[in-house]
């Protein structure tokens, strides 16, 4: 693919929402999500001569965005920011995530209570509208694992959503 600034800018503009949203929904922090999304596009710039066609670029961006966001999450957990605990209990979100909650919708907030691998498959399934077979291919994960993650994540989110709704209706 052509590496000219004009072509690259067009690619960034076409895919920025996708990449930023994947990073945001895995990380739950808009600042870090933007940083990760920028890094993903710079990596894409270097990889462009090896990529051919729009579908190749899209698949590449999805895969790399997921991996880089997960890496950032791991780094944050290693620094002891408490990210590892945030999904133990749906309501126990760490302070930095809570800070961004007003910017996020209810489903996005609940998504952050899932373990990171489940977040990845949920984002690819419901944001990117990919079939489980395609998610398995893109994340190089066994299909059975993808199905199991999706099943567990949807069940967990449904239970949390119902609980929240009951709490809300009780006043």
């Amino acid at each position, binding site marked *: 693919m052509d590496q000219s600034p004009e072509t690259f800018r067009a690619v960034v503009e076409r895919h*920025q929402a996708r990449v*930023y949203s994947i990073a945001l929904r895995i990380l739950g922090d808009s600042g870090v999500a933007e940083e990760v999304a920028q890094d993903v596009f710079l990596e894409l710039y270097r990889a462009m001569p090896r990529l051919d066609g729009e579908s190749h670029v899209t698949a590449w961006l999805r895969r790399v965005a997921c991996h880089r966001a997960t890496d950032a999450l791991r780094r944050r957990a290693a620094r002891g920011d408490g990210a590892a605990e945030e999904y133990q209990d749906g309501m126990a979100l760490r302070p930095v995530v809570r800070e961004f909650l007003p910017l996020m919708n209810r*489903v996005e907030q609940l998504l952050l209570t899932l373990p990171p691998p489940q977040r990845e498959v*949920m984002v690819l399934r419901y944001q990117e509208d990919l079939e489980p077979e395609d998610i398995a291919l893109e994340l190089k994960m066994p299909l059975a694992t993808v199905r199991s993650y*999706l099943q567990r994540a949807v069940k967990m989110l449904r239970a949390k959503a119902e609980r929240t709704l009951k709490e809300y209706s009780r006043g």
Partner: protein
Amino acid sequence: MVEPRDDFEQELRQQLQARPAPEGFADRVMARVPKRPARSGWVGFRTPVWQWAVAALLVLGMVVGGLERERQQRIEGERARDQVLLALRIAGSTLRDVQDKVNAGASQQKLSQKGAGRAVLDRDQ
């Protein structure tokens, strides 16, 4: 299984649509893209073909230089060997001359000793 698409899944799909990136995101990405070198008289020299040609010339120069130095060393070696052989030949012929002179001196001395002995015998008789 997650196959049946119920209301909850529809809700998920709707709520998880891609969000727009922050304002100015593309500009910030473009600002981080490494700049290509400015066009100048040297730009042609920076092309890979030129770089390969210069590298090839350097390697060729080193090979030719190495071969030439080896040839010079061989010539110098041969010259030194010839000089040593010449010196040995000269030394050999000088030694032969000296030996001949020594041999000639020795045989003359024997003859003169024999002559002297016979004279003594004749006188005694």
